[in-house]
């Protein structure tokens, strides 16, 4: 196993890089769509369009979405999409279905009075969202968002579907060469646990910051 340290490090880099990219994209898209489809701002037509988006994003398995993104979309559009971009794009699309629902629920949970107070105090919409609504929404949805980001970390193993050598595939490659599945699987599991623990620590810190005077 020690001999394979450099390929393992490369696998870790690919996994963490993919996770960072997909989680940023998922959070950005989810926040945007969650905002524009919330009860206070969204029209009925817009909300149903976004509901359709989340239905498709959540309804198709991520594995299938990756294959579609890498094989079918380029064929239809006549473009060449690199494997890493296709896989990360597909994962981000799939995850954004969940983050949109989470964000929308969090924003809808903010009492109407907060929006009204912002309006009577002359806040423009951007200030309402940035200073009051989103910080309060994050307090409610932080655990759910954290769960989705943790799930996304493990979903990066699906990148192996189209040949990207992330951490899990690196382990499988080592097993095929050394035929030592138990230590390899345990090592891979341990590494994922380390990443999850780091993410968990960040989430716990964020949740504590959102207590706003409650103990």
């Amino acid at each position, binding site marked *: 196993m020690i001999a394979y340290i450099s390929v393992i490090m490369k696998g870790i880099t690919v996994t963490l890089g993919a996770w960072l990219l997909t989680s940023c994209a998922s959070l950005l898209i989810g926040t945007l769509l969650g905002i524009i489809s919330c009860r206070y*701002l969204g029209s009925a037509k817009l909300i149903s369009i976004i509901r359709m988006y989340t239905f498709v994003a959540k309804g198709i398995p991520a594995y299938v979405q990756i294959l579609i993104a890498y094989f079918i979309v380029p064929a239809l559009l006549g473009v060449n999409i690199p494997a890493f971009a296709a896989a990360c794009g597909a994962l981000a699309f799939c995850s954004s279905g969940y983050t949109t629902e989470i964000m929308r629920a969090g924003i809808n949970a903010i009492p109407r009075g907060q929006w009204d107070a912002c309006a009577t105090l002359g806040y423009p919409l951007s200030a309402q969202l940035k200073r009051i609504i989103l910080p309060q929404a994050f307090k409610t949805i932080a655990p759910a968002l954290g769960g989705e980001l943790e799930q996304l970390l493990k979903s990066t193993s699906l990148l192996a579907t189209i040949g990207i050598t992330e951490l899990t595939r690196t382990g499988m*490659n080592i097993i095929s060469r050394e035929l030592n599945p138990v230590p390899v699987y345990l090592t891979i599991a341990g590494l994922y646990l380390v990443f999850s623990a780091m993410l968990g620590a960040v989430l716990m810190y964020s949740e504590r910051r959102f207590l706003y005077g409650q103990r």
Partner: protein
Amino acid sequence: MKVIKYLLLAIVCILAGSFYFFRTKSKSKKDGNTLVVGIAAGYAPWVSINAQGDYEGFDIDVINAVANTMNKKLVLQDLGSMSALLMALDQNKIDAIIWGMSITQDRLERMAMVRYQGDTVKSFPLLFWGKIPNNIITINDMKNMTVCVEPSSSQDTVLSKYPFINTMPVEKIDDALLNIQYGKADAAFVEPAIAKKFKNKYPEIQSLDVPLAPENQEFGVGICIRPADKELIKGVQNAVDALLQNNVIQEFEAKWGIGS
């Protein structure tokens, strides 16, 4: 709302710009002097990634030699799985596949396969951990027993003819080793080359040969090419013939412990 609309517009522009940036004609990566070959690492000794992060294995040595013989620049594309390899070949993303693919009647109906290694296989091995149970003489004695097999493989097709056997699909054939070692399955049904690899590492593995009907027999392993690519088929065939004649492939077999 205006800010959000502008942000959405910006995202759409970035995506459209990315498509423009990535747009290429589907064949632009490939030209007359390049041979793009699909592989899937993680199947030692055929194809795997070594400790330095480079692709190596019997298939890698063979395809490098084929490309050199044809005076073409080799481009390897790791696609991770059989389904991805076949899709890429269909879509003209790659010129050929080299992945220790057994030549079967079924596959020959769908694509051209240039044999580069192996003889006709008339039986597949059933692997047992430790002693083969006394009452098992042939596969027909294995009623209600559980056997690991890789889905959609040649072994899977053969096993479907024995409905009294419980099939346990394993995504990676190396996982079959875990299953028989820890008693999750009674046996594993694998390629002869895989059986040889397992037995070399673990002498406690015993095997039982299962004879194959003519339609299930394999005729070695081959490089897969689209049937319409007649020129490429001819070029690869000539290269492989030359390498076999000069004992190059045989040397690779000895190097990687493949074959009898």
